[in-house]
Every structure is written in structure tokens, then in C-alpha cells.
């Protein structure tokens, strides 16, 4: 067990790194999907740039949520300074706490990008319907936000556990 305990920090760091990696990759892909669709609209109607940009950016937030969890975890486990004495169980718990944003962040970013691309097409044809078009991708984001919430609460909660 003592030997295992030295690996606690490794699992915790793995969780944090995945939280930055996976949603980040997904958001990059998602934003590029929006960019491709948006560029097409701009060639036809450059005046829609502002609206299209907002829609393109919407699925970019998952990457930021991931970063957020990664950062909170890093500072909790002492990688950014302080003591890094993490037991094996605690390390695994940190890892698990990161999972919601890792998994939901990944899949929701891609799905949200699809909704965003569809909304960009709406703006191309009917720029006045921007307000409604914006809501569709935002609906998808709800689940990323819920996952973020659980990850925040879990990471914060784990740090208070005495195991």
C-alpha cells in the first residue's frame, strides 16, 4: 500500500491532464467545423461576420471548462506548488472527479458544433433569426455545464476527504 500511495499523484495528474486534453481537442475540432461553415457564409455576405463568429465560438467553451477543471485539480493536488502528498485512493478519486468533463465535454462539443453549423446556415439565409438560431447550440451546452458543475463539486469535495 505504501508503494501504491506513491502513485496517487500520478492518477490525479492524469485526470487533470485528460480534462485539459480531451475537451480541448473536441473544442478545437468543433470550432473548426463552425469556422468552415462560417467562412462559406462570409463569402456571400460579409456583414454577417459578427453573428457567425458568435455561433462559431459557442462550442469552444468545453475546452475552457476542461482547462478550468485541470487547473483546479492541479492546484488542489499541489502540482502548482505546495505539498503533493496524495494517497492512492485520493488520486483515483481525483481521476474519477475529472471524468464528467472529460467525457461529456468531448462529446457535447462535437454535437454542439453540429447544431452550431446548422444555426450558421440559418443565419446565412435569415440573418434576422439570429436570436433563435443561437439558442439551439446553447441547449446542447447545458450538459457540458452540468458535467462541469459535478466535476467542480467533486474535485473540491475530494480535497476535503481525509483518506
Amino acid at each position, binding site marked *: 500500500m505504501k508503494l501504491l500511495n506513491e502513485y496517487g499523484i500520478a492518477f490525479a495528474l492524469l485526470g487533470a491532464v485528460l480534462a485539459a486534453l480531451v475537451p480541448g481537442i473536441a473544442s478545437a475540432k468543433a470550432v473548426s467545423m463552425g469556422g468552415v461553415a462560417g467562412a462559406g457564409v462570409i463569402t456571400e455576405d460579409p456583414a454577417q461576420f459578427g453573428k457567425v463568429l458568435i455561433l462559431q*465560438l459557442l462550442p469552444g467553451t468545453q475546452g*475552457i471548462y476542461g482547462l*478550468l477543471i485541470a487547473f483546479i485539480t492541479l492546484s488542489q493536488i499541489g502540482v502548482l506548488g505546495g505539498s503533493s502528498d496524495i494517497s492512492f485512493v485520493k488520486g483515483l478519486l481525483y481521476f474519477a472527479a475529472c471524468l464528467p468533463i472529460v467525457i461529456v465535454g468531448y462529446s457535447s462539443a462535437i454535437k454542439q458544433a453540429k447544431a452550431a453549423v446548422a444555426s450558421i446556415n440559418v443565419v446565412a439565409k435569415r440573418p434576422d433569426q439570429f436570436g433563435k438560431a443561437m439558442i439551439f447550440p446553447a441547449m446542447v451546452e447545458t450538459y457540458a455545464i452540468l458535467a462541469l*458543475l459535478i466535476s467542480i463539486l467533486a474535485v473540491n469535495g475530494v480535497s476535503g476527504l481525509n483518506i
Partner: protein
Amino acid sequence: MALQKMQRIYIYALKKDKDRILELLQRRGIIEVRNMLKEDKIFRREDIGHAKESSEKNVAAVSQALEILNSYVKENKSLLSSLKGRKELPEEVYASFGEKLESVVEIAKRIITLSKKIAEEKAELIRLQNQIEILKPWVNLDIPLNFKGTKHTAGFIGTLPKEWTLEEIYEKLAAYMPLDVEIISATKEQTCIFVLCTNTFKDNVFETLRAMDFILPSISLDKAPAEQLKDFEKQAEEIKGRINTYLEEMKSYDKSREDLYFLLDYETIRIEKYDVIGNLLQSKNVFIITGFIPEKDAKHIEEELTSKFDLAVEVTEPKKKDQVPVLYKNNGFCEPLEGIVNSFSPPGKGEIDPTMVMSLFYYMLFGLMLSDAGYGFLMAVGCAFALYKFRNTMERPMKNTLKMYLYCGISTIFWGIMFGSYFGDIFDVVGTTFFGVEKVPVIPPLWFFPVEKPMLMLTFCMAVGILHLLIGLAMKGYQAIKHKDYKSLVYDAVFWITLLISCVLLLLSMEMIKNILGINIELPAYAVKAAGILAIISAAGIILTNGRESKNPFKRILKGLYALYGISGYLSDVLSYSRLLALGLATGVIGSVINKMAAMTAGGIFGPVIFTVIVIIGHALNIGINALGAYVHTNRLQYVEFFGKFYEGGGTLFKPFGMHTKYYKIKE
């Protein structure tokens, strides 16, 4: 919280005053013209397609000309010009523009012709330059390229692929002597040759050359290449000169730009007028205008019209089946949010205007999501500055947008102070890295740090959510009262509000919930009991009444049960407000990450400089991405959670007959 009351207006007037009356109405811009009467034998509508067409043609030509002009001569536009609004023009300019119209259209046409000419000349120039390129290898040849031979000789001018020496060529043609071969120029790619042979061997020589992949030059000219080259170059110079004069002329139209823009506006006004004329009922001497007018303006315009012209005005209440257009009546605090309501949908028939109620929550939710006093300060100051600087000329929609962000910014400052966030934790970081401050936080939050007590923050967010939803239901009740539909008031609003409140009370009395939320309230036993009873009564009420549109009692109960199942929807609605916490935390934590990164570089002489650069760039990015998030998700909470409870929309906005110009505003 209201809409302007609309009335039907009918104006019966003499045709001789038609132009002046329409001019006046267009200037006032308070009547939306609609067809309300049918055509008959005497009163007919006029076909104005022809007149409109010439205006539309002008608009098309001028738009094209402006696009061309802008591509040749850059327009001087400052970054802030969109804030400035339309330029004001005195009325005389508008009135006298009719005389100038033709000349401006001519300028537009000339610009289009010029751009065509420039394009043609450029194409010609490219053709010439290609020929020059082809001719260049032949420059040492002193006979024309189309030389075919003399009486007794045959000449071949052309190219061989790859590099050839004189010997190699002679070797191939040795059988057909006498002949003369000259290499005009040779490169690795091709060798240009001139072969002269006797007429007897003409065909044999050609065959042999063909076998060597001999190709005739792609152009055939009467002059010697050197001479021809000079000609071409001269021509190219001439073309360039012509292009330059065209460009000069194009530049000279820079000063006509304003006229061109104004023509667009002028024709827009005319087209709008033609559209209205097309809707008028006209007899030989009389015409009738019908439409909607806000009640507050009806009296005034009636007086003005009757004092100036011989006509009759009739104002009546709108009929039941009328799709009355929507015009808002709101104060300065909630007016900025009309745009948000419109982008969902303007209030439909019989609906109340939700702007006022929405505005209270809109600013609050936005502030909670951004929740950083520094960011809020930047937003508020930026908007206030722009509003002040362009206070006289700024257009209304822009003004409203800026005002909305101003109020959102103020709310953000408030919540930032409550939660102790100033550009993340900039004061703490600057204090500890540069001034050795030990006591952090430098400015403690007025209430608490959400990062330290996330569950308390979550509880607060859900409480806000429940309040928001209850107000949505109350709005439904209010609407029912307005329509005197008291059944709906009790069944759809009161029952649900009671059920929700009693359920919340019951949940709060459970140990588990109390533990999760970390709150400690002891509800008196009788309150819990009362809540339980109320919950059962209201749930039963919902089951019995919410399927009331079905006559079949069995179906009715089933529908009622399904409606009660909608309570799970309320659960997800309330949970949806947890985004307030998540987005609020995101702003604060990313802000502190930026500060921490900056603090890592703070050592050394250049430390403070690098620190400042990182802080500025980092926070600029953070404010952008989080303000966007706050805007989008505030809208979502309003549209989905709040409007879902009582508001459908579906109305059309009031579009008065007026001067909807784009570039200039005509002064009265």
C-alpha cells in the same frame, strides 16, 4: 410593461393633394399602411410596378457603382463610425435632389463603364505581354516570323524541344544539302531555329524536322521580331497610360460618394412611397389610405391633416380578427431589452409585453454569470463613454444595445463586489508579488467566495431559478386575469405555484437535502404538514383540471396525470440555473489562472512589464469569451425556462410608412 394601443385609421382625401399628403405622412412616420377595404368598380388600386422599376434600377446601378468605387478608392471610415449613426442633412438638400438625380445616376453609370474599360484594357495588356514573352527568343531573327521562303528556297522557322547544337541539326538534315541552319536562341527547354533549304527538298526537310518534334511558332507576324517587339512594347505603354487615366477619373469620383449614398436613400424613400401608393384605393378624384396608428398619435395627425388639407379622417378601434402590429411602450430601463424579446418573437395576439419583468432578471442573471467587478467596470465605462460621446447622433438600436450592456455591466460590478472578484484576484496577486502584502484577500467579498463555498452558491442559484420560474407562472396568471379567464388563472397558475412552493418546503424539511445543500433551517412541524397537504391538493387539482380540453373523463384524467408529470420539467428547469454557478466560477477561476501565470514571470527588471502584458491580453480574452457565454446563457434562461412558462410570441412589429434611410437622416 405595455404595448402602445393601436387604432385603425382611414383617411379620405382628394387626389390633387395626394403627393403632399403622402409626403407629410412619410415624414411623420406613424401610420402602418394596410389593406382594409376591398376594390370595387369605382375604387381601384393603381399598378405602380413601372414607376418602382426605374427606382429599383437606379438603386441597383448605384449600389454596384459604390461597390466598384470602394474597391478602387478606399473609403475613409473610422472604427467608431458605426456608433456615430446617420449623418443629418437639411431638408432643402432632400427637396432639391430630384434635379440632381439624373447626373448622379450618370456618374454611377460612368463608374460602371470605367470599371469595364479598365478590365478590358487589363486583359489586352496581358495578351500583349504574352506575345512579348513568345517573341523574346526570336529577337535576333531579322526576318518576319511568317517567312515561308523565296522562289527557289523554302524557309522553316520554329522551335525544337530541348537544347540542340548546330552540328546535331546538320547531322539530321545531311541528306538534303544544300541548306542553311541558324540557331536564333537556345535554352535548356527549347531551341529556336531557322532552316533554309531548296524547294526540291522542301517536303523531306519538313518531314525530318517534324520527326525531331519541330513546332511552328504560335504567332505569325509580318514584321521582324525585333521591330515587332518594339511595337508591342509601345502598345503596352499606351494601354498602361489609358488605364492610368481611367484610374485617375475613377479617383475623381471620390467626391461624388456622398451623392451616391444619398441617391440610395432618396430612392429607398421613393420606393417606400410607391409601395404605399400601390396600396391606396383610388377613384377619379378621391383616394383612401387605411392602416394602423398608435392611439397617442391619432388625434395629433388628424388635427394636422384637417388643418392643411380638405379631407376626412376616421379613427376606429381595431377589429377582433385584426393582426394588430406591435409597438412597445417601455421606460429607459427595460427598453434596451426589446431587441432581446424581438429576437425571440414580438408579443402575439392578446399577449402582454414581457420586457419589463424580464429586464429585472436579465441584468441580474448576466451579472451573476460574469460576476467580476473589473470586467463589469470596463463594460459599463466603455458603453457609457460611447453613449456620451455620440449622444446626439447615435441610432436608437445601437443606443439600446449599448444601454443594455451598460446595465449588465453595472449588475456585473455589483455581483463582483458581492463575490470578491476583481479581474480574478488581481489585487491579491499584485500585492503579494510586488508589494509583499501578506494579508490576503486584500478586498474581502461582501458576501462570500463562490470557489470556497460552491454548495452555498449552488443553493443561491437554484433559489434565483425558483423565483424566476414562479414569476413566470405568475405572469401566466396575470395574463389570464387580463383575459378574464379565471379558470386558467386557478388551474394553470395558482395550482402550479402552490405545488412548487409546497414541494420546495417539503424538500427543505428532508435531512438529505439539508445535508447536500449544507443549510440549516428548521421548519416548524405544522408548516411541513401544511405544505404536504397543499401539495396533495394542488397535485389533485392539476390531475383533474389540466386535461380539461378533453370531454372524455378517462382521457381527461390521463392528460391531467401527464400534466403533473411536467413537474419533472420543473426539476430540470431549476437545475438549469446551476449554469449561473458554473459560468460564474469559470470567469473567476480563469481570471486567477491568468494572474497566476503572470505572477510566475514577475521576477527581474522586465518582470512587471511582462506581467502587465500577460494580464492585459489574458483578461481581454477572458472578458470576451465569458461575456459571450453570459449573453448566450442569459438569453437561454429567459427564452427556454422563463418564456416557456407563459410566453409564445408570434406578433409582427409596427412598421410605419416613413423614411427608412440607411446613410442620411433628413432634418425637419
